[in-house]
């Protein structure tokens, strides 16, 4: 019988070879395919079932962290002050659609980023469970809170930059949403919360500071028109501009008038500096027509219009229209027609002016750290571009200081702080009050802030609202809070 027994041994060996072949096929050859299948809840849970690292603001306060829970996901993401920081953190959800820093810095927070390679290697050797890294933001909680409080119940946004480094100190968008509800582990609850916000006419999910529907810049765009004029070499701050009470636009039955139909100057002409101080529409419209759309477009582009930018959140590029008629060029030169901007873009314009013409790259991440909080990567201050010369910057800076001392932005002034600004009151349509702006800089203690504030539909003042009345006080409140620290 021994021969038969040997044959059966061979048969069993062949059966086991088939098993070994099959598991090798599944676990080696097809493993990646199996993991990638959309209905594979394992991969899905696994991205949650790890100690995702915290998001920390400047000063060390934790605004997002994970705590272990007893469900299929293992860890629950928690946002302290969720609505306040939602435009920055975004949300980490069980639906395949995380946003904000949670999305942009996912690999660091998960612990799988290249910058964390060494600590991962260490985990592998010591058999420790891999931990997520931490992301330290440039956000200054004082500036963030001040902007949030000052905007109050109005719809709008505020961006505060450190003009010398490009660090984003505040990024506020109102109304906001609570990311904690989107981080829930019940799919139906998450969808219900998301749908409710998505259908809300106030669009709380918009990140108005860097994306959303964008805004007409209104008169704040005059900074760019003025910059283009100064850069052309044909104009100085004291160059006389045509400033009629009403400016007839060529080939059009439209007229440009000034705010509240006022007259800018009894003589019909005024200097560019004076025109900026009182925000004279007709003067800048005629200046715009004289410069031509190409010169203004080129200047806007140098400030960042039409450029992709990641901070690392994706910023929607601001737009200056192309191929316009002369009449539309006049409108675009004063921030109307189809000009569309983000508050971040306008803060960048102010930052370049306040920083001798050097535009520093705006960024939200100060450091990436491993689970032991050892710094693995630091964002260095980097010059993004030089949109204007140092002398143009100085001229514009002085003109903006005048706006605060003698012009439309007097309510942006703060004692003991050098403040320069430009207001804007952007007309939209007959049904809506204008969006109101204040864009500017504030210098004290060797620091230079660049700030843009926008409030939608005239804020609490409605049709009576203007940039100087509604947005400038918010600007001042932020400056006071930061320098009052």
């Amino acid at each position, binding site marked *: 019988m021994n021969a038969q027994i040997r044959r*059966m041994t061979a048969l069993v060996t062949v059966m086991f070879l088939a098993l*070994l072949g099959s598991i090798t096929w599944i676990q080696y050859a097809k493993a990646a395919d199996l993991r990638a299948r959309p209905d594979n809840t394992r991969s899905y849970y696994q991205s949650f079932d790890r100690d995702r690292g915290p998001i920390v603001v400047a000063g060390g306060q934790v605004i997002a962290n994970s705590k272990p829970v007893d469900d299929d996901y293992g860890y629950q993401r928690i946002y302290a002050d969720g609505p306040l920081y939602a435009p920055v953190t975004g949300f980490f959800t069980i639906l395949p659609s995380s946003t904000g820093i949670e999305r942009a810095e996912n690999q660091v927070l998960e612990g799988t980023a290249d910058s964390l390679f060494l600590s991962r290697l260490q985990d592998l050797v010591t058999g420790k469970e891999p931990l997520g890294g931490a992301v330290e933001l440039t956000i200054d909680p004082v500036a963030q809170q001040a902007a949030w409080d000052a905007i109050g119940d109005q719809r709008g946004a505020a961006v505060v930059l450190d003009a010398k480094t490009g660090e984003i100190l505040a990024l506020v968008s109102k109304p906001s949403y609570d990311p904690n509800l989107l981080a829930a582990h019940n799919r139906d609850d998450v969808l219900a919360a998301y749908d409710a916000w998505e259908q809300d006419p106030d669009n709380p999910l918009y990140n108005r500071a860097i994306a959303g529907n964008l805004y007409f810049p209104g008169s704040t765009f005059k900074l760019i028109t003025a910059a283009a004029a100064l850069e052309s070499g044909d104009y100085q701050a004291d160059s006389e501009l045509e400033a009629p009470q009403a400016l007839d636009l060529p080939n059009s039955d439209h007229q440009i008038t000034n705010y509240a139909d006022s007259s800018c100057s009894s003589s019909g002409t005024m200097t560019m500096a004076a025109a900026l101080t009182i925000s004279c529409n007709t003067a800048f419209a005629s200046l715009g027509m004289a410069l031509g759309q190409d010169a203004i477009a080129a200047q806007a582009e140098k400030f960042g219009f039409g450029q992709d930018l990641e901070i690392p959140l994706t910023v929607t590029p601001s737009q200056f229209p192309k191929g316009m008629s002369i009449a539309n060029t006049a409108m675009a030169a004063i921030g109307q027609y189809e000009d569309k901007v983000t508050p971040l873009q306008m803060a960048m314009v102010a930052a370049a002016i306040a920083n001798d013409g050097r535009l520093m790259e705006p960024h939200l991440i100060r450091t990436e750290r491993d689970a032991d909080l050892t710094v693995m990567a630091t964002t260095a201050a980097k010059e993004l571009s030089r949109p204007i010369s140092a002398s143009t910057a100085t001229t514009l800076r002085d003109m903006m200081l005048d706006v605060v001392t003698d012009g439309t932005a007097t309510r942006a002034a703060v004692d003991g702080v050098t403040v320069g600004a430009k207001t804007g009151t952007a007309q939209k349509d007959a049904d809506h009050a204008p969006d109101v702006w204040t864009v500017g800089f504030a210098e004290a203690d060797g620091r230079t802030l660049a700030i843009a504030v926008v409030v939608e539909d005239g804020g609490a003042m409605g049709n009576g609202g203007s940039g100087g009345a509604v947005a400038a006080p918010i600007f001042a409140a932020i400056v006071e809070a930061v320098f009052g620290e």
Partner: protein
Amino acid sequence: MATVLPAAPRRGRWAELFLLLIALLLAFMAYAQVALALTDKLPADMTIYCAGFTALALAAHFVLRWRAPYADPVILPTAVLLNGIGLAMIYRLAARYEITNPSFANIATKQLIWTIVGVVAAVATVLAVRDHRTLRRYTYTCMVLGLVGLVIPLVPGIGTEAYGAQIWIHIGPLSFQPAELSKILLTIFFAGYLVANRDAMALAGPRVLGLQLPRFRDLGPIALAWVVSLGVLVFERDLGTSLLFFGLFVVMLYVATDRPSWIVIGLLAFAGGVAAAYRLFGHIQARFQIWLDPFNTEVLNRNPGGSGQLVQGLYGLGNGGLFGTGWGRGRPDLTPLAFSDFIITSLGEELGLTGLVAILLCYLLLAQRGFRTAIGIRDGFGKLLATGLAFALAFQVFVVVGGVTRVIPLTGLTTPFLAYGGSSLVSNWIIVALLLRVSDGARRPPPTTSEIDLTPVIASEAERREAAQAADQKATQVVVRP
């Protein structure tokens, strides 16, 4: 001049002790790693677990030293290792079920108790069966008990249906799968029956198309096996057990008679039975669909009878990849029945391809030691018994692992020693005990002349033939000497 003394035969008990300590160490490390991964602490009962398990294994070892000193030294450590790994995985899953599925939270404790019962049963078997040949006396008793075991789950009031198969019996709070014990009883019966009748079955009968066909009256036992296994298939809806019995019987028939015709007839008959069942029963058709096309959305979402469990198992294996997630770091609990039918995918997820290969090689080693024993033992009954037990173990692993890895259609069978389940664990420990007992006989040095029992033994024609062949070989060797 120099005299040639026969070397003292190697018993291998020290080797067994050494291997046993390695197996225990691996099992304890697995247990500790599970707790460390899940709670960052060693398990509270680590000391008592280690001490208890070590005592149990050493008790078995010393009983072998005492009562079966020549037993194969690899079998016991391999069984202890597999049992220990299974315990660690069940402990790991129970920790998870405490949160998600409290009705399964006590499986680790139960399995631990069944492990003790299993080892005690193995020790008792080694002590009670002093010579495996005594079992031959109970050939027909075993047949009756084995068949009763197969049929009893169908008795109303005792048998219960679970997971679509009616193979459990419940007496009070205890539930048992009698088919697991029937596997051993019927192997003893087959061995005893075949060793007595194999000459008639091997030699008589017409030749058709080059195949030596058996005589019609010798078809009796295979027909019985065919009826019983198809009965199990049809009435208890247990494809796995049916396949196991049929495979076991066909292999033993072939080994006993050396007639490949049995295999051909057996395969044709089984294929015919399955084909008929496929036409008649929806659940068998579903099994084939699941096997061939598990990712088809329709097959996946069908309830009941969808491929969700198989697909979850495959995802688990994929998640494990080459090296696995590590003990306690995967999500094997997402697969339904991760602790019984699908424990192999649970282990594949956390230990990876490398771990799974090691586990399969342990089984292959166990089967190979069983076949080695069958070759070494001198009596025909012992050969058939060892072959049957080793093949049953290996074939069961093939059916269940092949099922979850899509080599064959998925059928419900437990994975020996690893899977949760008292009947399976106890039966497999008894199989190990029987293999140890037979291997003791196989490896024991032949008795010296003075010890030879001259009482004539009723030997079959084939045994006489083999003895004659062996004598011939000896004679030839003498002639060859220069």
